[in-house]
């Protein structure tokens, strides 16, 4: 009888171990290196790979800034897997959760004076990725972002 974990494997599924980073801004460059590796393995062209890097960077910055309320308060768990034509990236934290549906969209087409400096993070995640979902299970928040090929 196969182990329960192995039983969930499908064809074309690559399993990569989860990597845990300290919730500090200097982790961002290291996470970006893993994202490059994932995008390359998945075969993304440079612009799409840049977009995935952006989405992950914004998500991790938000975890540090908003979920933990600052640096050095907790960890970020990074995982990716390639499922057929999808690159699936998950980020886990155990900070404060939030309801993404209650976050207003940034005002993009306004004159300089009205233009806000913040509010681009979630917007970038949705623009650059094909799917973004967020769930809180107990104390754990899981952000899943999917990039599809072509």
């Amino acid at each position: 009888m196969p182990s329960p974990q192995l039983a969930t494997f499908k064809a074309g599924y690559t399993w990569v171990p989860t990597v845990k980073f300290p919730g500090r801004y200097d982790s961002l460059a290291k996470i970006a290196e893993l994202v490059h590796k994932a995008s390359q393995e998945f075969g993304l062209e440079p612009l799409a790979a840049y977009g995935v890097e952006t989405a992950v960077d914004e998500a991790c910055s938000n975890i540090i800034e908003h979920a933990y309320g600052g640096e050095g308060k907790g960890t970020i768990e990074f995982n990716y897997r390639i499922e057929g034509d999808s690159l699936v990236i998950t980020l886990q934290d155990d900070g404060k959760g939030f309801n993404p549906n209650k976050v207003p969209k940034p005002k993009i087409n306004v004159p300089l004076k009205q233009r806000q400096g913040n509010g681009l993070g979630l917007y970038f995640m949705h623009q650059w990725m094909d799917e973004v979902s967020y769930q809180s299970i107990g104390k754990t928040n899981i952000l899943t972002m999917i990039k599809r090929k072509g």
Partner: protein
Amino acid sequence: MEILHNELKRCDVIKINGRVDSATAPKFAETANEIVEAGRFRIVVDMDDVDFISSAGLRVLIGTQKICRRYNRGEVVLANVPATIMASLELAGFTPLFKIFNDAVAAVGNF
């Protein structure tokens, strides 16, 4: 990230090398602040060697632009913007808010 600051007669050039993210954007903000605090409001940001810029870096750009444009005393312009970053600027709606030049010479020469 590495920052080179070059004070010229009529403008200042900030050349950024590497990644601008939440870890490094404060250094960019610091350089921009030093310039505007010196009463200089014409700034060229040379992005030729920028690998990546997150919304934290864009926030510095927009904040500095607001300060520089005030009273019509100057502005921030961009030079050598890589295609990836140009895509980000477009998504963010920044392209109407910054003059973008093909090279630093043209950017400096515009002042």
